[in-house]
């Protein structure tokens, strides 16, 4: 058998990946505007500060990968509705026919691991999923979801299938059946991208506002 010994040589502490991604967006705001996010006087965050999502929960476990979210055989399509028709097929073939607009997903750790296919968060969004709540997310999926405007929040939530879940993205709070969970709060700049419907729309709006 392989021998393994672990030695921490020097470590400055490894931070949660999603904290890192969230912070990245703040940093991007800083780079673009030269100020901390939300403090740019030309940007109004008033509407984005109260993103509330309320929906019925679909519950999945750990390591939900991009192949079960949308299998490779459907990726050739240009018809994006086809993605929604096959979303989560690998885990629950009846999902796409039963999911209702506004439903949300509650999952365990490492949600969206595997491929870099942006079609994965896109398929969930097109199927009507309003938010993904997971204990943690895989790095590329997290970035892709923000870029295409699918809200997500990192929170360790106990939840039964079909329960009503309320997510307050701005406060980083999730409420299920009277139980309140504190998740990772999204910075205002990230809320702005989500509010605009993703990075492409956000960039377009910035152009219209003469910010870039």
């Amino acid at each position: 058998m392989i021998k393994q010994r672990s030695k921490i040589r020097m470590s400055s502490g490894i931070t949660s990946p999603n904290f890192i991604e969230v912070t990245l967006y703040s940093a991007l705001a800083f780079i673009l505007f030269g100020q901390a996010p939300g403090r740019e006087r030309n940007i109004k965050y008033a509407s984005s500060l109260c993103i509330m999502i309320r929906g019925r929960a679909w519950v999945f476990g750990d390591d939900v990968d991009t192949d079960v979210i949308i299998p490779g055989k459907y990726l050739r399509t240009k018809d994006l509705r086809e993605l929604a028709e096959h979303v989560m097929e690998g885990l629950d073939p009846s999902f796409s026919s039963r999911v209702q607009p506004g439903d949300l997903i509650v999952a365990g750790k490492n949600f969206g691991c595997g491929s870099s296919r942006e079609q994965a968060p896109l398929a969930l969004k097109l199927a009507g999923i309003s938010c993904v709540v997971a204990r943690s997310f895989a790095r590329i999926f997290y970035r892709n979801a923000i870029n295409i405007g699918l809200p997500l929040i990192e929170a360790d939530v106990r939840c039964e299938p079909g329960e009503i879940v309320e997510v307050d993205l701005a406060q980083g709070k999730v409420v299920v059946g009277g139980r309140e969970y504190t998740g990772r709060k999204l910075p205002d700049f990230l809320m702005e991208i989500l509010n605009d419907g993703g990075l492409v729309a956000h960039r377009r709006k910035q152009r219209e506002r003469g910010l870039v």
Partner: protein
Amino acid sequence: MGVMGLSMAGQTLSEKIFSRAANREARAGEFVMASIDRAMIHDITGPLAVRGFYEIAGRGARVWDPSRIVILFDHQVPADSIKAAENHQMLRAFAREQGIINYDVFSGICHQVMPENGHVLPGHLIVGTDSHTCTYGALGAFATGIGSTDMASVFATGKLWFMVPQTLRLVIDGRLPRRVTSKDVILRIIGDIGADGANYLACEFAGSAVERMSVAERMTMTNMSIEMGAKAGLVEPDRVTMTYLREWVTEEPIRGDEDAIFTERHWDVNDLEPQVAMPHRVDNVVPVSTLHHVKIDQVFLGSCTNGRFEDLKLAAEVMGDEPVARGVRMIVIPASRKEYMRALRAGLIERFMEAGAIVESPCCGPCMGGSFGLIGPGEVSLSTSNRNFVGRQGSPQGEIYLCSPAVAGASAITGEITDPREI
């Protein structure tokens, strides 16, 4: 740790690459807006990136630098459907219009075509709309997978923001026993670390075992770094790297400092057994000797993980003159046209064909389940590729085991998962 300590410490290879790309000293944990040296898209994720580019930059816009972009077709080639053909047409037209190099349907898998044509250089920052872009780290580049919208942004500006990752150094010492390969090493490491155990980290492969490995063997390991969540997998450039790159690079490459800050884990491979990842998780890894009478329906020898000449040669050696077992379908796919030609000249293609296998043109094949060579409900695939997720190679009711080319060769002739040391 104090700020002073940080500022005096050396830099990891990743920190140095980001420092160069951001044109300032970059340290793990810092945010940088970095210039991209090379951007790659392929036929599956490319169309969305092109569409996003025009949406961001406007109709008639030009990409930031066509000489830094590579467009390849490898997932659904030659076109397996009209939709795939349309995607290829669209990307060909984009490449022509923008003056971007385009490797067409017979060239091979992006992660083999990129390095073998000098598009991957040590010290470079490379992004690709494919999660296995991390393969290129075998040549000392920092390479990572991104989504199509991020790529659209790169096409428009040539820049992308990153957080400079912490480095996890995986020190692998010892000599690999006969018929035990770098695939077995990386499977064991993923089994030990877990599917999200290296999330967001730069995994640096080092140690005496890695020093002895060829570029092909190193690529197998950096390729699968993403299967433990890593942002990149790297090997410090050495003599082996520079020999591989002699056509393109002569100057000294960037290396990390010995006093850099990183976390380190050690493995000794002197007694390592061949390993297998069982369905449906890449980190569900066991030694092959613990599996008894696992019957297989299909063997896939290929992919960006194990489709190179060395992989084909090893599998052929293990198979000897034996035919593929009755009832087993063996699909062999060289990773690129060049690797195919090497295998052809060495007589490997003929040996596989005589054994009853079929050798396909270079492409991703069954690996992503998006094209041909799929498995049906209840079938078992033994594959040298990198993922065994539910439905990855066809039916969600099928099962995929991941293994080395040696295990694939041994199992192809026996019809069940077999230890290659017993052949």
